[in-house]
């Protein structure tokens, strides 16, 4: 686990500085396109300011913004005890000191995501639809997947990658707008400059190329990182729970759901466990997809018969993919302890009751909307709407009077 964190930290740093250099270069080229003398400096300045602002905002407020945009509400243990317990189980399995905050999104479409650039103030958000459709093992698998994103520091990496994508897109946008509105100024500045010539022609071609290809390449790069992170989180989840079937079943249920997530958009889509914007029959999706094909993720998880270590995952991935591609960083593959899947689980005897799960999920949403719950001694659960302004509630079964505080 430690090796993975190190490798991801390194990648984040490389991405951060490499991205900086790239943006300065693009800024210079775009600026020089408009004004060969002073434009370069202005372009660089513009790029740096944009980069600093976007990085700062997304680093310090990104997770708050994303949670707010998705309509997630923070919950305590009593809102959905099972969810809280499952998160704690995964925290214990990973042996990490931090406890992520838990959020519920009131949406019938099953999905989940994790956020927070630092593990100490990370959060896991799940939809009420997820709680209603998954059994305990499956929920465990999903939470383990999200927990892995947090533990592996994926979110920091994805945040920086997202900022890079954003800055490049905005810059090429500004560039094209400039061409559309201010084409004339370009001519003027060029005729007044003495140093125009071959250099300027190269700059012009380069600028056009960067403006057209930059955003596309940045996007492909972003998607490629995102896909790899998903595989890696699946591998970590299998390793944490030692029960890959749980996550496999959960992915299957999520994929088969007909609901569409209301609050998801292009920016937040890569964060979810399953791409919420996925349309049917998208086959060219391989390059432009933020997530690996679900069927393939399920197949890999189900083929982890011998063991659930990173090494096993990499092996099965290559077998199913038919080509050599590093999904797991080398450092994590060196891990020496054998990791066998579990056979006898502690909660094997508990069967899934879809009605009960749906009720629990509904209750959670009601609690989010300030309903009060009282468990009467006789075993009846009394649900009190926030409009109720009487001080005493009588149990409909046994007649016990409950004082509302």
């Amino acid at each position, binding site marked *: 686990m430690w090796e993975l964190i190190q490798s991801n930290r390194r990648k984040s740093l490389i991405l951060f500085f490499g991205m900086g250099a790239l943006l300065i270069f693009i800024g210079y080229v775009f600026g020089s396109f408009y004004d060969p003398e002073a434009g370069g400096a202005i372009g660089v300045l513009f790029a740096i300011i944009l980069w600093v602002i976007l990085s700062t905002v997304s680093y310090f407020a990104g997770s708050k913004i994303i949670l707010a945009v998705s309509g997630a509400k923070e919950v305590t243990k009593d809102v959905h005890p099972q969810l809280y*317990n499952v998160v704690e189980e995964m925290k*214990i399995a990973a042996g990490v000191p931090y406890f992520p905050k838990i959020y519920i999104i009131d949406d019938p479409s099953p999905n989940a995501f994790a956020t927070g650039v630092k593990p100490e103030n990370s959060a896991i958000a799940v939809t009420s639809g997820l709680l209603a459709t998954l059994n305990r093992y499956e929920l465990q698998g999903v939470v383990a997947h999200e927990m892995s994103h947090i533990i592996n520091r994926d979110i920091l990496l994805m945040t920086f990658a997202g900022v890079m994508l954003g800055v490049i897109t905005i810059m090429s946008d500004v560039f094209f707008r400039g061409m559309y509105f201010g084409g004339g100024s370009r001519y003027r500045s060029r005729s007044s400059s003495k140093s125009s010539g071959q250099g300027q022609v190269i700059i012009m071609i380069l600028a056009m190329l960067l403006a057209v290809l930059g955003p596309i390449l940045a996007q492909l790069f972003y998607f490629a990182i995102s896909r790899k992170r998903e595989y890696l989180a699946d591998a970590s989840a299998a390793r944490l729970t030692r029960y890959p079937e749980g996550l496999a079943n959960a992915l299957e249920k999520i994929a088969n759901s007909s609901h569409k997530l209301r609050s998801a958009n292009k920016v937040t889509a890569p964060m979810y466990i399953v791409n919420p914007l996925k349309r049917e029959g998208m086959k060219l999706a391989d390059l432009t997809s933020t997530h690996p094909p679900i069927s393939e993720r399920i197949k890999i998880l189900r083929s982890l018969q011998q063991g659930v270590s990173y090494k096993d995952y990499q092996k099965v991935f290559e077998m199913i993919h038919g080509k050599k591609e590093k999904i797991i960083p080398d450092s994590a593959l060196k891990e020496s302890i054998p990791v066998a899947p579990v056979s006898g689980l502690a909660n094997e005897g508990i069967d899934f009751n879809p009605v009960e799960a749906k009720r629990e999920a509904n209750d959670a949403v009601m609690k989010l909307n300030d309903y009060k719950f009282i468990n009467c001694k006789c*075993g009846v659960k009394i649900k009190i709407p926030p409009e109720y302004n009487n001080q005493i509630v009588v149990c409909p079964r046994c007649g016990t009077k409950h004082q509302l505080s």
Partner: protein
Amino acid sequence: MIYFIIFLAVIVLIILFFVSIYNALIRLRNQVKNAWAQIDVQLKRRHDLIPNLIETVKGYMTHERQIMENITKYRSQAMNAQTVGEKAQAESLLSGALGQLRVQVENYPDLKANQNFLALQEELTATENKISFARQNYNDQVLMYNNKIQMFPSNIVAGMFNFKEEEFFEIKDVAEKEVPKVSFN
């Protein structure tokens, strides 16, 4: 002079090497201790849940006196256990008894619909999962620590500073071996 410097450098390197091994051993041992603390917390939590469970269940399950007595007995045994091995033994007996209770609950539909019982059942399941995940983590840490102690060259440092191997926390499946007593009087 140059040989002396080389000699000195080699000595310093060897010392640094040993220090790094020593630190790694200390880190691993602390991780084992921390992992054990996690198990302990969850075991205590389970012990705390049991009186509540008995209280809720006893009104409904009038015919399962034996199971409930076993649970109470194994609980106090588990609370008094000292070593890792003893604890593992007592806790697996307790798990077995709780498992039997869980099977019997199926015969009491009223109990299954009781919200207090459902809440307790979730807590118990969660605690049992937490125990098994904490155990998984603990055993991984112990394995890494023991490997380090046995392997060359860290075994030299481990021998010098008296690092001892730790015991795995293994829960045997006692429930299956123990045949439930049936009496006809």
